[in-house]
């Protein structure tokens, strides 16, 4: 019996020590339709999709020129991103403000996040701003934008790409890929601007936002507070985020279920003060 145990352990040592292939790899969890294809969309491809989606968004909204507040939003967003599952995307996270009173935000695949002035106006302190950004970062971490791409498009793209690693695309192949790429951009933009993500994706983004906020040191209850601010702005014909998201009341209820104890310290006042200082310049 003793020999058997030793032999078994030796076998385990020789054959079952995990190698890197058994270590979870970066960004491989793509809970989307495109992941059902032969391979998921790679980080670099996600980046190029995101750039074109961003270009489309910027075709409809004007970029707000507010260097101080943009830097402040980027500091807050980057702090959250460092505490998410994917702190580093191919091109990194970039946060920009759109000059619109509409209450909205858009997480482009790859890491570009747009937030409207109307959405920023909902936040009354830094923790609430962080909560808004955390929700958008969660959409990028969850690859929800990519999930809007019809799986048939990606399957077609993979067929065009083929398996010859070193060759360049011929003009014909570029034309075919362009059609797929264009369709993919349309799918993502439609999801971001018109149809929205599914309720479950939105609830999951809220849930992850709570995790990121807590990990970053922000008060997770700020998400509930900013949702309450959002609820107070709700109108029967509301566009923007009201058109694309589940009912704010339901979101508040679900967030409430997941809130845990958080000890508010004097640093909350410090953060709120610096928010007010930056916001006073921004809102002039």
């Amino acid at each position, binding site marked *: 019996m003793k020999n058997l145990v030793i032999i078994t352990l030796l076998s385990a040592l020789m054959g079952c020590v995990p190698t890197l292939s058994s270590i979870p790899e970066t960004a491989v969890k793509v809970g989307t339709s495109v992941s059902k294809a032969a391979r998921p*969309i790679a980080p670099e491809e996600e980046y190029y999709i995101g750039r074109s989606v*961003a270009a489309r968004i910027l075709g409809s909204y004007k970029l707000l020129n507010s260097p101080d507040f943009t830097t402040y939003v980027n500091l807050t967003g980057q702090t959250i991103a460092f505490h998410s599952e994917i702190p580093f995307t191919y091109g990194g996270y*970039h946060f920009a403000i759109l000059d619109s009173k509409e209450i909205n935000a858009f997480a482009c695949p790859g890491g570009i996040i747009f937030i409207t002035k109307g959405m920023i106006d909902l936040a009354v302190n830094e923790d609430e701003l962080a909560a808004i950004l955390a929700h958008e970062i969660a959409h990028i971490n969850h690859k929800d934008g990519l999930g809007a791409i019809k799986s048939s498009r990606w399957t077609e793209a993979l067929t065009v790409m083929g*398996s*010859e*690693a070193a060759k360049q695309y011929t003009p014909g192949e570029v034309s075919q890929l362009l059609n797929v790429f264009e369709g993919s951009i349309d799918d993502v933009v439609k999801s971001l601007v018109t149809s929205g993500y599914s309720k479950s994706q939105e609830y999951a983004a809220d849930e992850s936002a709570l995790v990121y906020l807590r990990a*970053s040191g922000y008060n997770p209850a700020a998400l509930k507070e900013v949702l309450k601010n959002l609820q107070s702005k709700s109108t029967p014909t509301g566009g923007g985020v009201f058109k694309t998201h589940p009912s704010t009341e339901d979101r508040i209820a679900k967030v409430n279920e997941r809130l845990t104890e958080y000890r508010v310290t004097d640093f909350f006042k410090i953060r709120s003060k*610096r928010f007010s200082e930056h916001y006073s310049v921004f809102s002039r």
Partner: protein
Amino acid sequence: MRRIVFIMLLMLVPAVVYGETMQVITKENAIRADCNFFSAVKAMVKYADALEIVSTKGDWYMVNFGGKSGCIHKSALNKTAVQLAKTQGGSHAASNEEVSLAGKGFNPQVEDAYKKKHPDLDFNLVTKVEGFTVPAEKVAMFIKAGGLTE
């Protein structure tokens, strides 16, 4: 006997995963002295650089690259066929993942074609937005001043 079994069980825990190679999957990144976002930069790496994995520490890999060693976050690396990058210009049957990581798939060539078809879209603005970055050192100061968590 119990002691032997215990020691052997301890040996089953892979404290070090040594010698395998992983590839950088971000445009650029930093190998840092310690395994945190704000530690001193020991070397800069760029997309497709191949790093030798020495061990893991939480969400970080300890790596060797160009004669220097340090930490890099796991989200910046992926296990791929690094050999592929070395065979650019030749041709061999590659997996789909290899094809993408060699710069195929949706790439600048496809984006250029999209730009030509949509001259109304301003990609310069997108590039401007990509310039909205904050250095890690500034984030560290922001975190500290706000009583946040590194």
